[in-house]
């Protein structure tokens, strides 16, 4: 099977340190990855991504368009991707809800694209300018049917840059929509980041070959573009390897849906990233992600200074979920704690495999979870 290729290219800015907001870093990460199309609709707290892309993308030979709504945004992104461009959109909760049908279409037609979700406090319009992490389950389950996109969770402005770049690489490698699950707090945070001289980018495999099937049950087929003379047949209906509709054939549907899962799950080791802090000898372990993991690390470092056996597992990949790591980790802990800016969405996944008592702390008031809250909770558990 031919594969996507990896190349070293110059980053979107001269090498050096930059003082950026998270949203600005997302835009530069996307440009560095080779993004050539942005279709979007304004929404707080993500709009600065769109504004920077509007200014920067045309300079770099790309196309920016402000569409009439989020449904049109994701549709334009998918159309652009099939025309051969690396393509993205960015939005927040209400926009993510509107995009779900299109994201399901992208999963089923194996269309690489990046969807940045700068999460705010929901449900509904909620607290439009405040932080939340309530879209984690929607990223996995929001579209009808069994879809398995990839979702990444950055915790810093540097990672808004780095993980956006990686989101493009994963999308192109696996022909799948990839979410960057940002949060308002990181999107509007300003920090120093380092932009390297060169970055590694993945270029999609444009064929030849059947665009919708492989001999391997977990393969990623090549993806020619419109205009390549391949007479592509792209449809959101159940289709065979060449794209012909086979909506009455049980076997075609099974093989396709299972392959779309296996191409992600069987490569989970290649996709999943996380970081462990002080976990070697920890008796109490926190599992956290996104901005909350910053507070968690702060609390853990403080308690470590007192000699307390606490550690942190920081998830950078939320989907596919690292069940095996969490199961192994919780087997060695006396107690596991989670902290989330939602009603316990990731905690539910941890619960499925947790081998020690689990304490779940949720906070849904539109503010970040402070290090002090986490520290108090750990002391409670340890006492």
């Amino acid at each position, binding site marked *: 099977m031919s594969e996507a290729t990896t190349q070293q290219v110059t980053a979107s800015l001269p090498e050096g340190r930059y003082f950026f907001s998270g949203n600005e870093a997302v835009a530069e990460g996307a440009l560095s990855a080779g993004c*050539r*199309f942005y*279709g979007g609709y304004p929404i707080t707290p993500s709009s600065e991504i769109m504004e920077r892309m509007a200014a920067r993308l045309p300079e770099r030979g790309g*196309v920016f*368009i402000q*569409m*009439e*709504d989020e*449904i*049109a*945004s994701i*549709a*334009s*992104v*998918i*159309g*652009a*991707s*099939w*025309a*051969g*461009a690396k*393509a993205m959109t960015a939005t927040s909760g209400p926009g993510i809800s509107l995009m779900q*049908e*299109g994201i399901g*279409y992208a999963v089923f037609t194996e269309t690489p694209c990046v969807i940045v979700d700068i999460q705010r406090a929901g449900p509904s319009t909620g607290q439009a300018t405040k932080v939340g992490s309530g879209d984690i389950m929607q990223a996995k389950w929001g579209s009808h049917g069994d879809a398995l996109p990839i979702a990444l969770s950055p915790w810093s402005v540097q990672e808004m840059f780095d993980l956006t770049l990686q989101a493009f690489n994963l999308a192109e490698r696996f022909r799948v929509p990839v979410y960057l699950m940002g949060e308002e707090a990181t999107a509007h945070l300003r920090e120093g980041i380092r932009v390297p001289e060169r970055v590694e980018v993945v270029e999609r495999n444009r064929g030849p070959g059947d665009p919708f099937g492989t001999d391997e049950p977990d393969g990623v087929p090549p993806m020619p*573009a*419109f*205009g390549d*003379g*391949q*007479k*592509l*047949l*792209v*449809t*959101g*209906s159940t289709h065979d390897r060449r*794209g*012909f*509709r086979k909506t009455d054939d049980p076997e075609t549907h099974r093989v396709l849906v299972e392959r779309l899962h296996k191409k992600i799950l069987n490569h989970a080791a290649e996709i999943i990233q996380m970081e462990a802090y002080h976990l070697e000898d920890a008796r109490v372990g926190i599992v956290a992600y996104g901005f909350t993991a910053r507070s968690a690390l702060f609390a853990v470092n403080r308690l470590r200074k007192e000699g307390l056996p606490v550690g942190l597992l920081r998830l950078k990949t939320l989907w596919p979920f690292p069940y095996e790591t969490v199961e192994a980790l919780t087997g060695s802990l006396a107690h596991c704690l989670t902290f989330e800016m939602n009603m316990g969405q990731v905690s539910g996944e941890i619960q499925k495999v947790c081998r020690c008592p689990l304490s779940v702390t949720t906070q849904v008031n539109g503010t970040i979870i402070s290090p002090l809250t986490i520290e108090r909770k750990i002391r409670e558990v340890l006492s």
Partner: protein
Amino acid sequence: MTRALEGYIRPEITGTPFCPGCGHGSLMGTILRAIEDLGWDMDDMLFVSGIGCAGWIPSPHFNADTLHTLHGRAIAFATGAKLVNPDLRVMVIGGDGDLTSIGGNHLIHAARRNIDLTVICANNMIYGMTGGQAASTTPVGCFSSTTPQGNPYPPFDLCKLLEGAGARYVARFAITQPLELREAIKKALTLTGFTFVEAVSPCPTQFGRRNRIDQATGMIRYLQEHCLPKEEATGSEGPDKIITGEFVGA
């Protein structure tokens, strides 16, 4: 002669899914004849469609790149593809429900932006595929599975809508006017910018049957009787008349 358009159809295709008497097969032929007249290479073309009977006109039949998208969203998908690759000649084909009801927002905005697309709206005045429900184009008083007492709401005049939205070329012909329709499609394809052709197409299965036009030939007769060239219109016609012609960019 019957095989004249064979090269425009994927070799795997042995038939269409359209009901006997459906206008969409005729429209399919008219579109391909227009492309043949222009001498265009199908490898330079991209056909984008949504969901509904008319979405099947290009996909899977046309021997070119085809993108069969979501209900209502074809124009937004097409916008992304066209902007990334301006060399593609992009045609969107869809039904009235698909393009003008659920997809109405995309239609008017693409026209406003003057995106270089040709949109062919196969208007059969009803939702065919889902079982004959009323559409935004169903004439007042007509029966459908969701207007059993007759449709109380006036339909869109699609050509006026597109004119208002800023389309570069706007025309309406029925499939009972195949020569005019073919010329309109050719003009729409060759003009740069957003072009729109409303092709009034009979749906005997859902529209005809519910409105006591029992035969496919009855639907053809209905269109012949109700279509009136705009040059002959006085402005005092009743709402059942279908005024045909080129309205913008003639």
